[in-house]
């Protein structure tokens, strides 16, 4: 089984972003591997360790620094990587999920992948659309927000997913399929030093996004980007009556 995993280079989860010129300011900002993509790579590597899969290929779309993200995926256990080079912003400002899924579609066809694992969403755009759109383009079954993935003996897979109303178990009778990975699927490993060294020698192929014959123009127009309003300072009340009065008359929380 050949697994393709998407790994996105995003603003690090701990960074407090600033808005400049109606867009998120990315200058000198720390970038990292999208946490959900990290979970996807971990799952793919585990499937390989269980001998369910025999190859894991990591794919990233982005500027030349995206190769660092790919090296991390390789250090975690991916066998080789594909870097789709583009200087377009991948945080929804320029490159959007529809174009991204078309890029993935082309690569999946080229690689003849059996399973595509993606993070459930990028923490920059929070769209969660690439997985479903890719499945739609390929005509493949999809299961999103996977919290458990098990390969069945007959070549199918059983996936558990967490929803707001509870857990559900979905069976994919046969591959190929697209699965997007949620937080509790696994805890990604720390890459050890020797694996990091080995990763430097693993193959990374480069493609140019603009040369792939896909219309990369955004389908949606971003009208405005702004920071949430600063939290207003709290006020101290001096009595319970005063508190009740404010809750009733100012906050409108009591009738």
């Amino acid at each position, binding site marked *: 089984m050949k697994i393709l995993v998407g790994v996105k280079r995003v603003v690090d989860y*701990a960074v407090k972003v600033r808005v400049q010129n109606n867009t998120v300011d990315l200058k000198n900002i720390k970038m990292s*591997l999208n946490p959900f993509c990290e979970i996807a790579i971990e799952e793919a590597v585990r499937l390989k360790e269980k001998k369910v899969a025999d190859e894991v290929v990591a794919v990233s779309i982005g500027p030349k620094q995206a190769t660092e993200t790919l090296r991390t995926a390789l*250090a975690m256990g991916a066998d080789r990587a594909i870097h789709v080079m583009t200087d377009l912003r991948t945080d929804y400002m320029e490159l959007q999920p529809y174009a991204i899924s078309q890029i993935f579609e082309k690569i999946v066809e080229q690689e003849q992948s059996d399973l595509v694992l993606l993070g459930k969403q990028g923490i920059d755009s929070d769209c969660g659309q690439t997985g479903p759109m890719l499945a739609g383009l390929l005509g493949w079954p999809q299961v999103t927000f996977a919290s458990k993935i098990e390969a069945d003996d007959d070549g199918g897979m059983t996936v558990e997913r967490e929803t707001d109303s509870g857990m559900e178990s979905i069976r994919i009778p046969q591959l190929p399929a697209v699965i997007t990975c949620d937080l509790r699927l696994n805890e990604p490993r*720390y*890459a*050890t*030093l*020797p694996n*990091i060294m080995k990763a430097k020698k693993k193959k990374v192929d480069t493609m140019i996004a603009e040369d792939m014959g896909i219309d990369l123009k955004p389908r949606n127009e971003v009208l405005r980007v702004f920071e949430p309003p600063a939290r207003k300072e709290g006020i101290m009340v001096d009595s319970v009556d005063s508190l009740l009065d404010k809750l009733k008359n100012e906050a409108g929380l009591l009738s």
Partner: protein
Amino acid sequence: YKRNDGILDPMAKVGSGVTKNRLNDEVRHSGMQFVVDPGADATIGGMTACGASGTSAVKYGSMRNNILGLECVLPDGTFVKCGTAALKNSAGYDLTSLITGSEGTLGVITSVLVKLHPIPEHIVSALCVFDDLFKAAEAVAMLKLRDSPLARCELLDKTSISAFNRYSKTSGNSSHEKMEEKPTLFLEFHGYSKKSIEDNIEFVKKICVEDYDALNFTFTSGEEERKSLWAARHNLYYASISLRKGATGAIVTDACVPLSSFARLMTKTAEDIRNLDVVGPCFGHAGDGNFHCVLPVLEDDSEDYLGRLQQVNDNLIRRALEAGGTCSGEHGIGYGKIKYLSHQYGSGGLHMMKL
């Protein structure tokens, strides 16, 4: 961390407010980690000020061994840079060591240059059960004497184990198997290869079983299984508190002695606890000769009970000092242990500290 033509130095400069988990999260894709593990997600600055230690000290040492330098501000506003990025330093007084563990009495630490170590490639956890606490503690002393390659070495007395068994049952954690309520050694091995770890385990197992009558020796390498094996140790504080219904806090004792006296100190303290009829599991970073008792306290405990708890602590410290040990292995002095310092160091030592 500093770079030099592709070879990275295993160190990181961190602001003192950065917590240990945040630091490890930050460097995790470099294959390195910060090894001092006090069990709580403490700030690096705080850990430095308290000279923190943890379960990894038996192999990697405490904060003192993992700091190359630091920056601090003295009470008069002077900014001081201590230490060096080099691995050895013979220039001037060792200010870094002086500030480490100074508990905020000498200055405010603003940043620390910490050492990093590679994340181990292979980890195996092991459990070794003994019939007798004294024998278990002696086994550890011998293991250390032989320079055994242990990454973690914790000894839990039978009260600790039974606390854990009770705690697992009541907290609904039925995935944990009931453990034998006997003194148990929790061990961890790190290595480059499976073979090197296997050799280490054989070595340690032989000493425990043949020379110190260990009852059994089990080990495992899978991550989930290791967590499960060490569950009793990880949950120890909460399991201990729950030994006394309604306890929300505890007095935790801390003392450290040369390994030759460790067995005697730990068993005598366990005896005291029994004789004074108080509740308190004992467990130790046995490889360092350091152990703690968790003595749960209830809000409405009588003066008499509290007095007996104090007695356990006083006896413990008295014996530790008699053995040439220290009244505080890890937790610092604070205000509560100032009174022991003159006994431990004598007037000369105190005089120099006051300088």
